[in-house]
């Protein structure tokens, strides 16, 4: 087990190294820098470049960046000239993490309940309704849902605040819903098909032959067998949440790293873009690793090698 985790951590670090390297060199060939302001005098430009270490040879810049990244130092923002990237991200990360965690928890729990309800009522009205709702749920991108929610509950029937963060819990309700719908829909569909498969399996037949009631069969046998595979979904769902949250943070004016990321694209704030990229990749990989380890702990069939 520990050996496996160490192996995975090594792969994780290697991947991060690749991500850093690729983004670094991509940034080098990126058209336009924030310093191509025609008003800048050549002297001022040279001065700026020295400040950011852009006058050094490329390999030196790369080396400096790598060493810095190892220490959690991703340089200084171009946009906010005296703020370090790690500080910018550090301030905003907890906000994004809370939003993402809320959405994931709400989404997965709702999905588990709806998926099980759907499977147990296979082919009747409840199943049909949930089927339509969950299909709709995966067809509507979270940012469109966010916009619709803002329109409906912000403007039409102003029930919830539609912008800001941290002042009250109610501010987080709409963005959480907007983000949670997709994981909920994905989980619903997944649990439904897993559960239907479990309910038609031989071991459920055997459980029936033991004289267990349908409720006992679902609770003791079908549920556990269809819940475990849901864990494998959490990785991809987390990736989806990252994408969704950038725009959702933008729409709801939430000061998270997603919003920061979106803001730094038009202003070509490369250090921030790179730093965010590395953090995003690291977060996703850690999520996947954690779910893999959890799966191995919960599912007796999986043994880590």
């Amino acid at each position: 087990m520990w050996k496996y985790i160490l192996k995975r951590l090594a792969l994780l670090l290697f991947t991060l190294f690749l991500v850093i390297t690729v983004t670094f060199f991509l940034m080098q060939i990126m058209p336009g820098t924030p310093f191509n302001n025609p008003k800048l005098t050549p002297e001022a430009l040279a001065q700026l470049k020295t400040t950011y270490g852009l006058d050094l040879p490329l390999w030196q810049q790369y080396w400096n960046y790598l060493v810095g990244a190892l220490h959690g130092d991703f340089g200084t923002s171009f946009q906010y000239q005296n703020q370090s990237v790690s500080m910018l991200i550090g301030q905003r990360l907890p906000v994004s993490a809370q939003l993402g965690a809320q959405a994931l928890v709400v989404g997965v729990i709702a999905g588990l309940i709806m998926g099980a309800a759907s499977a147990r009522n296979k082919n009747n009205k409840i199943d049909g309704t949930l089927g339509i709702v969950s299909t709709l749920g995966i067809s509507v991108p979270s940012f469109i849902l966010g916009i619709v929610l803002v329109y409906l509950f912000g403007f039409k029937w102003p029930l919830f605040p539609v912008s800001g963060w941290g002042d009250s819990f109610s501010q987080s309700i709409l963005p959480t819903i907007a983000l949670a719908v997709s994981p909920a829909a994905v989980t619903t569909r997944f649990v439904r098909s897993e559960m239907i498969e479990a309910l038609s399996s031989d071991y459920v037949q055997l459980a029936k032959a033991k004289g267990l009631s349908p409720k006992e069969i679902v609770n003791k046998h079908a549920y556990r067998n269809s819940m475990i595979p849901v864990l494998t979904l959490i990785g991809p769902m987390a990736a989806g949440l990252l994408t969704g949250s950038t725009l959702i943070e933008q729409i709801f004016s939430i000061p998270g790293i997603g919003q920061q990321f979106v803001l730094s694209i038009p202003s070509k704030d490369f250090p921030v873009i790179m730093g965010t990229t590395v953090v995003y990749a690291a977060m996703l990989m850690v999520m996947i690793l954690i779910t893999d380890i959890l799966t191995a702990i919960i599912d007796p069939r999986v043994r880590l090698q």
Partner: protein
Amino acid sequence: MSNPILKVENLHVNFNTYAGTVQAIRDVSFDLNQGETLAIVGESGSGKSVTTKTLMGLNAKNALIPDNSRLIFKDRNLLDLTESDWQSVRGNEIAMIFQDPMTSLDPTMKIGMQIAEPLIKHRNMKKEDALKRALELMKGVGIPDSEEHINDYPHQWSGGMRQRAVVAIALAADPEILIADEPTTALDVTIQAQILNLMKTLQKDTGSSIIFITHDLGVVAGMANRVAVMYAGKIVEYGTVDEIFFNPQHPYTWGLLNSMPTTDTQQGGLQAIPGTPPDLLEPPKGDAFASRNAYALAIDSKEEPPFFRVSDTHYAATWLLDERAPKVTPPVKIQKRWAHWREMQEQESQA
């Protein structure tokens, strides 16, 4: 032998499908006596699996059973039971051994717990007591070092061991009737014998009755007291195991016996039954086997044969037994069996 614990009378089971009504079981009647093993033999599609599912009340929702069908067990018609009544019968009074041990156990539940489940359900045992009993059952079905393995999960066990666990689950609540649905088909031949021996020993200890479903006549010989041969949703011949093996009367039984390898089978001596079983959406008129039967009579395609008595325990539904029917000579291998039967009869009368 005249103490039936289960009486099946005029059982019909139909399935509504998009293509029409499939008549899976067409008028099946048999008795199961206390402590005996009854084998139901037939090829796939003959209705033997539907029979077992009906006996367990586990038929699919689109199954239709007419009102005149009766399954009498302990003075009640099982077909009248509600679902919750069924739950107190299943796994308790009537239990079942499944075919495929690789898929029949819940992969995420400890095996000990899976064996204990029927006890908790039907005997109202506490979990610890049920697990204690499960351990005894594991020992009883011959699982070595049971104490160490009670907390194992199925994937840690071999197929043979898992099938022992499946047997233990079926036996947990001391059922009066044990239905074994091809319990050895999915196992290696050497393991098959072990499981069959285990079932025999356990039956001796518990005195329960077994309905043994199989397509393999070879397995039947050592296991069953009586044999019923099914074809196209009907029983075509039934009798004691000796009567079926050595004095078979129905051409279908002949076919089954001929297609079974024996130690004196010469090369190329295995004979297949030509053709395939009929479509039960529209069962043929008359004898369903007629179209595959080299000994078919003209009447077979017009009228269904009734059961003709061969002995008090042996009946066969074939027009060949009608007094008007011509004397036919069965295949050579069947003649040999008949010869053996005559010897057995003589020895018996001498004794």
